[in-house]
Each structure stands twice: as structure tokens, then as C-alpha cells.
């Protein structure tokens, strides 16, 4: 299989997020970037498929802070090749990024009959949030999202996929290749790679760097303003040392007749 994975960097939401003085973007000085979690699952699924059915995995990313570490990690996990599209992509949202990826693939004739393109099912860093479907549309290929399982049938050159609905219910679909998939979770959790292996990759591996025009039709939606949600103030906050807090919790649960 010709497996191509798109990975993008997103702000780590575990960190504090500060809104910039324009009121419309996040202050980049406060951001710690990390690979979009669903995209990491897409990397894992691609490597699993390569191990099962053979082929190569090409990782494609946009230039962003910390992206090199994400790339070397993906290479250490089993991606064969990495491409970084240079430029300042910070304010580009899903439709525009999808257009960039699609142009790259088309202009370089990278899609053949055995191509499966994988990326994360969603990201929470822009209003459109679902890059994978824009990508399917730009490439004019079948696209399915919220995928948690992929099986390749070499004779028919198609894939059987499972998509999540809700309440644990899933559905099975049969899809011709080439196709585009949004991965929600890989068949197995993303594998752990030791730091030493990632460091070795940094020394030996080569990231292909690519210049690219930024003149695109779709720039995404203009945001009027960003703001932090008002804390509902509903929660009674318990304070003290761990001992005191544990005592308070027991009191509350007793009062409410829960224990």
C-alpha cells in the first residue's frame, strides 16, 4: 500500500492558553505546540497497515514550532519518509491546509491505485475542525471519518473500515482505493518509542523540505473575537491540604447520602 499521513501541530490544551492583543488569535508566545492527537493515531494506523500488508508510509507536515520532534518520532515509529512544507501556516485553517496538502499530492503525482491517505478525524484548533473531509473533496476521493479499524483486501484493492457512531455502536463500510480516512483511534494505542531511538533518527534521517506558494482560495472563516468561557461558578471549590480535602469530600458524600 502507498500510505500517506498528514500530521499537523496544534496548541497543547493542557497548557494555559492566552488570547493575543488582537482578540482574535492565541498569543503564540504562550503556546506549546504538540502533534494533533488524532493525527498521531493516524500515524500509528498507517504503520500498522504497512506491517500487515507491506508498502511505505510517507509523513507530510506543515512547518510549525516543535514539528521536527514530531516528525522524528513518527520516523522512529516506522514512517519511511518525511516531507515538511515550509512557510508560515499559523493562521491557516482546515480548508486552506487541506488545499495545500491536496496541491502537494496532485502536483507531485503521488496518488496511485493503492494509495490510502490518513489523517486525524478532527482537531479542535479551528472552527471548521474537520480537515480530512476538505482533503477528500480537494482530491475528489472517497472520504470517511471517525475510523477506528482498517482492513485491506488486496484482491479487490479495497478496504473494510469501522466507523464509530455513539454508545459504543460502530458501522462497517467497504471503500475502494484510493481513499482518504480520518482516524479517530488506531487499532492499537500509538506505540512508545524510546528517546534514544528518536535521537538516533535525528542524526540519521532526512526530512525533505519543500517551498510552497501560499496563494490560496480558501483562507477559512474570519473570527470576530476569541474569549474564555465564563466560569459558571457553580462548583464549590474545596481547599486545604490533601488530608483536609479528603475529609471534606467524605463529609459532602455523607451529607448527600452517597456513602
Amino acid at each position, binding site marked *: 500500500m502507498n500510505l500517506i499521513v498528514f500530521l499537523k501541530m496544534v496548541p497543547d*490544551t*493542557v497548557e*494555559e*492558553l492566552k488570547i493575543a492583543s488582537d482578540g482574535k488569535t492565541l498569543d503564540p508566545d504562550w503556546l506549546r505546540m504538540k502533534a494533533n*492527537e488524532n493525527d498521531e493515531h493516524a500515524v500509528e494506523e498507517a504503520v500498522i497497515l504497512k506491517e500487515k500488508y507491506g508498502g511505505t508510509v510517507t509523513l507530510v507536515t506543515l512547518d510549525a514550532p516543535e514539528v521536527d520532534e514530531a516528525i522524528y518520532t513518527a520516523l522512529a515509529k516506522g514512517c519511511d519518509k518525511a516531507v515538511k512544507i515550509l512557510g508560515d501556516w499559523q493562521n491557516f485553517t*482546515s*480548508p486552506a491546509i487541506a488545499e495545500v496538502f491536496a496541491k502537494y499530492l496532485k502536483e507531485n503525482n503521488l496518488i496511485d491505485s493503492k494509495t490510502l491517505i490518513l489523517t486525524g478525524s*478532527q482537531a*479542535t*484548533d479551528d*472552527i*471548521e*475542525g*474537520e480537515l*480530512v*473531509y*476538505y482533503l477528500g*473533496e*480537494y482530491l475528489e476521493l*472517497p*472520504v*470517511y*471519518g471517525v475510523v477506528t479499524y482498517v482492513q485491506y483486501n488486496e484482491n479487490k484493492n479495497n478496504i473494510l473500515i*469501522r466507523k*464509530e457512531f*455513539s*454508545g*459504543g*455502536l*460502530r*458501522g*462497517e*463500510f467497504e471503500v475502494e482505493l484510493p481513499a482518504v480516512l*480520518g482516524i*479517530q*483511534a488506531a487499532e492499537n*494505542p500509538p506505540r512508545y518509542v524510546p528517546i534514544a531511538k528518536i535521537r538516533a533518527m535525528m542524526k540519521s534521517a532526512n526530512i525533505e523540505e519543500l517551498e510552497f506558494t501560499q496563494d490560496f482560495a480558501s483562507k477559512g*472563516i474570519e473570527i*470576530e*473575537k*476569541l*474569549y*474564555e*468561557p465564563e*466560569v*459558571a461558578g457553580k*462548583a*464549590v*471549590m*474545596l481547599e486545604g491540604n*490533601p*488530608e483536609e*480535602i*479528603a*475529609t471534606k*469530600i467524605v463529609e*459532602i*458524600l455523607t451529607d448527600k447520602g*452517597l*456513602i
Partner: protein
Amino acid sequence: MNNSVIVLVEHLRGNIVDITYEMLGVGKKIAQHLNVPLLALVIGKDVSKLTPNLGLADSVLLLDDEKLEITPPQLTAKLVENVYKQKQASILLLACTNITAGVGPILARRLDLPFINFCKTFRFENGDLFLTSQLYGGKILSEVKLIDNKGIVGIYPGSFPLDAGKSDRTAPVEELEVPDFVPEPSFKKYIEPELGDIDITKENILVSVGRGIQNKDNIEIAEELAEAIGGAVSASRPVVDQGWLPLTRQVGKSGMIVKPKLYLALGISGAPEHQEGMKNSETILAINTDPKAPIFNIAHYGVVGDLFEIVPILTEKLKQRKG
């Protein structure tokens, strides 16, 4: 043109999903403001029986066919696109759910319209519709103005009241012709949820763990608390994706919707997808190191602190209490 507002009705296996009523309620208000009819579009197999529930709409549009049981997003989009053009619609509301995922972006691209996903609230100002979406795991809200009041809006489940979308009246139904382009279904079958050792939807007390539990070995801390308190352990998505707990323990959008008497959220940030599955719990107590974790917005009791320091003491106290 600006001649209607359309709600794409969400249903699964012969039942209307609650988000449909949320969308109808929102759609009605927007339609009234724009002074246009509200249309409810139902696409599926054997869906004509659903129409009596859609009385809030001014009319119901039905695309009912064997081949339409579960349609992939590009096909759904193509069907909706036809209707959108035919009815000269301005705003299309659809559900921000796994079932409908993808239809919004595909339509936005094909109709050259903006797509605003994750929508939580809306307001009109000087005739313009402003929509608020939650981003970054619920930590930041963004407001967008819908230019010319035209676009596709993904409504986040649990954001609007259900009652506002229900009505006793019956709406006229228009059966639409199923277009020739509908192919043989790619949908093959459903895969039922696995039955676990424990049904978390039936537990009175859930000790739920999130990313903050850090690794598989630490799950034991939650197990011990669950045993002392008489509950079961559940989890948010990252914990299940890491393989630390089985899928049957997952609370949230793709997992289970739970409503226990007590929900203890340990190291769970409370992303919207998780809140969807537990926010109606009777009592929610959250422990998290991040004071800005969205879980505190819906918790009844909150502790900004380290679960590894607090939980073992709590477990010990509960054990002593039991004697």
C-alpha cells in the same frame, strides 16, 4: 436567495436523536428572525415513521429509500446540496456528531459557504447572526459573524434545550424523489457494543479517570477508591485509546452516556466530547491540577490539586468509615 432554514434530522436505527430537537428549536428561532419557513430534512431508510416527531418544522422533507440506511458523508452532502438549492435555503443546521461528521465541510466546499462547527450559542445583532463555537477542548470560545446570514452550522449536542424543538402539531410532509446518482450502499453492517464485565450506565457511583492518571499502573488507585466507595471505574477517551481500560468503560461522545448519582472525575480536563457523556450526573466532583480545566464549569464540587496526593487518603478514610 434566502427562502428557508433547513435542519438535517439526526436519527439512528429508527429513532430520532435528541440533538434533532435542539436543532429544531434553534432553527425555529433563526427562521422566525429571517421570516422564512423552517424545513426538516430526513434522509434514511424507513424514516417516514419519524415525521410525527418533527412538528415544529413548517414542513418535513423526506428522502426515504432502501439504499439510504447509513449514507457516507459525501453522499449525504450531495443529497442535501440538491435540497438546499431547490429550496433556496440560507442556513443549514446539522449535528456535530459522529453520525453526521463530514457532511458540513463537504457541503461548505461544494456550495462555497462558511462552515461553523462546534456551535454552542447564537445571537442576532442588527440583523446579523453571530455564532459562538467552543475550541481547544472547550477552553476558548470564538465568535463568528455569518456573512449575509448564509452558511452551514454544526450544533454541538447538549447546548440547547430539547423542549424548544418539540411540538404537538403535525407538519406537512413532502416526499422527495430519490436521485438516480445514489449508488449501492458502502455500509455493510452494524457492530454492536461489546458487553463488558460492568455496565457503567447502570452504576450509581463512577470513579472516572482521565489523562491525569498518567499510566496504566495508576489505574489501581482509582480501582481501590471505587472498591472503597462502592462504585466502578470509568474513563475518558485518552485512557481507553491508550489501552489502559476497555472500550466498555468509556464515557463520552463515542462511548457511553452515564448519569450516576456521583461522578468523580479524576484528572479529567472535561473536553466537550467527554462532558457530553456525563454532564447530567446528579453530583459531579472533579479533581484536577489545572484550575482552568473545563470540567470545573460543570462540576458541583471542585478540587484544584494532585489526585495522587488526595485519592489514597480519601480511599483510606472511606475504608476506615466502613470499619
